[in-house]
């Protein structure tokens, strides 16, 4: 980690430890090859993936798994595009069959314009999945009350949005994210909304355990370079949080000594 970190500062989710606090998506890239190069540059150890129908007319089309090896990187199947708990459960049962993984990302959306999570349905789906033995990382609103309910239901990570999916508007409600961090006993990961490196660093400075992003990297002019930027931003934000920032002051405070002036 560029010699910045002296002792390991691991992210532990459902008993498994990761060096990287950055999770990246695998959607919207120009090609799977570019996606794989961005993954390498990001240092991420977990990628989100979607479950979709095989193209029957062209089954030989290149596959995600031809470029990103699920043995080397943790695949985190998502329920993107699901609007009910039943759809989400059905999707993740298929994901478990395809990959034999229990760790999943639950997202149950309310409408297509905002892709805002339907929290009532999300909580219901989380309980269904946990009852079936899944380890649920949950995309949620930045409502601290629902965050607590999801944690109490047994979710292994709480993943509040910074702002709307794909918007690149950064963390719009840092006060709520901070409240969620303070109460949580499981990792809190800002999911959605990060647009550029400073957004990721700012999220990490709030004390969250990680950041999940897709569009900020995939839709950058140079995705591989942005992936590297995000890697450093997450490390910088984390280190700044651990270091403890100086207090803010309303007036200047000289850095050079006042004594000994000529």
């Amino acid at each position: 980690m560029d010699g910045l970190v002296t002792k390991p500062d691991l992210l532990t989710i459902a008993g498994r430890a990761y060096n990287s606090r950055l999770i990246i998506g695998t959607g919207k890239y120009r090609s799977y090859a570019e996606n794989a190069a961005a993954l390498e540059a990001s240092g991420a150890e977990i990628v989100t993936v979607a479950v979709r129908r095989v193209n029957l007319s062209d089954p030989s089309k290149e596959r995600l798994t031809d470029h990103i090896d699920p043995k080397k990187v943790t695949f985190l199947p998502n329920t993107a595009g699901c609007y009910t708990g039943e759809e989400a459960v059905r999707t993740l049962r298929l994901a478990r069959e395809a990959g034999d993984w229990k760790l999943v990302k639950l997202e149950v959306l309310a409408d297509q314009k905002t892709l805002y999570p339907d929290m009532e349905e999300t909580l219901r789906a989380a309980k269904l999945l946990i009852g079936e033995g899944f380890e649920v990382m949950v995309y949620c609103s930045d409502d601290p009350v629902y965050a607590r309910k999801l944690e109490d239901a047994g979710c292994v990570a709480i993943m509040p949005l910074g702002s709307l999916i794909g918007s690149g508007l950064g963390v719009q409600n840092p006060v709520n994210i901070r409240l969620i961090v303070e109460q949580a006993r499981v990792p809190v990961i800002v999911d959605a909304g990060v647009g550029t490196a400073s957004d990721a660093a700012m999220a990490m400075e709030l004390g969250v355990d990680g950041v999940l992003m897709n569009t900020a990297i995939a839709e950058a002019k140079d995705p591989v370079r942005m992936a590297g930027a995000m890697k450093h931003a997450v490390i910088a934000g984390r280190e700044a949080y651990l270091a403890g920032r100086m207090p803010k002051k309303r007036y200047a405070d000289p850095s050079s000594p006042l004594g000994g002036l000529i």
Partner: protein
Amino acid sequence: MRLTVNGEVREAPERATLAAFLASLGLENTKVAVERNLEIAPRSLWSAITLEDGDRLEIVQFVGGG
């Protein structure tokens, strides 16, 4: 017999096994998951499952996503 596969109507020989049908699609060795009439059809049972007329199959795989 007629099956509905990923929303498309497909023909298959009578009493075809799921394994044989997937092989006819070129999918027998790929990392796919199959649902038959809303129930997961585990890979270990593909050669033991005999398809029936009207079966609805979903065959899915991992793709890029956020």
